[in-house]
């Protein structure tokens, strides 16, 4: 089980060619560019298909330049996408209008289907944007980018500690599961779940104690409430060009869709 957890954590690291142009971009450029793609997609009206196509094309080019394979993208999106799509799957049956199709005891509507398709596309585009950001930028770099973009420091710090200790906690959980299994713990009914509750309690207490120790370790090296920054980021021409290109491709189409409505 521990191995499985580590395996799914591996999916959070870099993918593609770490030396590619996209990987070497400033994290702020990638954040801005890929968030822009998501924003354009989300804000676009339902039937403006060329805009969705353009978003997907931009993502395909970014992925191609970064040498992130379709397989990498699929392996990472398949965890998130079903959850996102679950909400949209009821749309064809709820939203009335247009032609009607009988699906068993239910009735699907053409307008509902169109909305479903658009919402699914928006979700897919947003998910792939996030996956590409994660595949081309290490998490510490994303944090540095967020910090440089004036995200509240407290939030960035919380995210940084979460990232650092996620692996420690996963390892600890794995060990506790092993300890349960080693003493023949095989829950057969709800009454047996009590042991899991105690594991959760123990995890909470251990995490709390760890937090205390980490804070002491920070104090011991002169921490005074301000998180110092080591290497400041520097925007280069390529970074500006990346953001500009993404906007140049998407914004005219997005505006045209608005005018056509």
């Amino acid at each position, binding site marked *: 089980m521990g191995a499985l957890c580590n395996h799914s954590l591996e999916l959070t690291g870099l993918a593609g060619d770490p030396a590619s142009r996209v990987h070497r971009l400033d994290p702020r450029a990638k954040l801005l560019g890929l968030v822009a793609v998501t924003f354009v997609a989300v804000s676009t009206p339902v039937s403006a298909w060329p805009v969705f196509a353009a978003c997907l094309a931009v993502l395909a080019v970014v992925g191609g330049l970064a040498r992130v394979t379709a397989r990498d993208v699929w392996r990472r999106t398949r965890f998130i996408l079903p959850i996102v799509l679950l909400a949209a799957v009821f749309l064809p049956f709820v939203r009335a209008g247009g032609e009607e199709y009988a699906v068993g005891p239910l009735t699907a509507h053409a307008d509902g289907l169109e909305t479903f398709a658009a919402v699914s596309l928006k979700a897919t585009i947003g998910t792939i944007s996030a996956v590409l950001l994660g595949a081309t930028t290490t*998490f*510490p770099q994303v*944090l540095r980018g967020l910090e440089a973009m004036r995200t509240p420091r407290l939030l960035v710090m919380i995210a*940084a*500690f979460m*990232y*650092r*200790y996620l*692996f*420690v906690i996963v390892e600890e959980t794995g060990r506790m599961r092993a300890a349960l299994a080693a003493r023949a713990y095989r829950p057969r009914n709800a009454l047996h779940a009590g042991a899991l509750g105690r594991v959760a309690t123990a995890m909470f207490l251990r995490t709390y104690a*760890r937090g205390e*120790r*980490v804070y*002491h*370790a*920070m*104090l*011991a*090296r*002169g*921490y*005074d409430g301000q998180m*110092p*920054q*080591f*290497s*400041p980021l520097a925007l280069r021409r390529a970074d500006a060009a990346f953001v500009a290109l993404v906007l140049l491709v998407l914004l005219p189409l997005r505006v045209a869709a608005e005018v056509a409505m």
Partner: protein
Amino acid sequence: MTCAIDVSNLTYHYPNGHPALDRLDLHVEHGERVAVLGPNGAGKTTFMHHLNGLLMGSGDLEVAGVRVGRDTLAELRQRVGLVFQDPDDQLFMPTVEEDVAFGPLNMGLERDEVRRRVAEGLASVRMGHAASRPPYQLSMGERRRVAIATVLAMRPMLLVLDEPSANLDPRARRELLEVLERVDHTMLVTTHDLPLAAELCERAVILADGRIVADAGCHEILGDADLLRAHDLELPAGFELTGVRLRPRPGSAPSIPESDPWVQFEQTTGGSR
């Protein structure tokens, strides 16, 4: 000339009222390497935390020329490098270099100087190749060495190590010893790895029930089986103390001999493992 540690009459009670340190006295000169021995629960870690002002008991405490008090904490923490027992507690930044930079940045040093300190700190524990890696990808021995680099980068006067060899396999332990023997700092090492103390420290004290109960040459203390037994300590079965030589200090011997197998290994592999 000040001394490295001057403690007299230090008393500390845990919040639940249980006494942890009981009128503890200890005097350490600059340049000494002292092993603090004692079973679990003797108060070793509590004492270590006092040296950095993380805990404050009653009594007189002067460390690295600074009288410990609330107004001297910043100064104190620059001069005393405390290496915690669990490197996962000590390494809290997303990457190794950011972690090593944490202390120097808190000292308000210029970025170029910080960069120099990071490189120097990591080089002195032979971890220069891991600068941009996240700590969770390192082995336990590597994490321990990086934890030492995080305090060396602050150029402390006194290095305080809490159980440095805990949870290390023999190879990682030997590498740690090789790193520590080249560190030219006053050192206080708590441990119940008695062979490590014999190789690293010329002096040892035994801490029991919150007091120093023995203070002598390391080999003298480790050679006294009755004394060790009385305080729940023992050498590994079959261990011959006479076969152990105190490792030479950096100043007293050529620092890195040409024939050092580790250096050759690093050169042939580019230091990456």
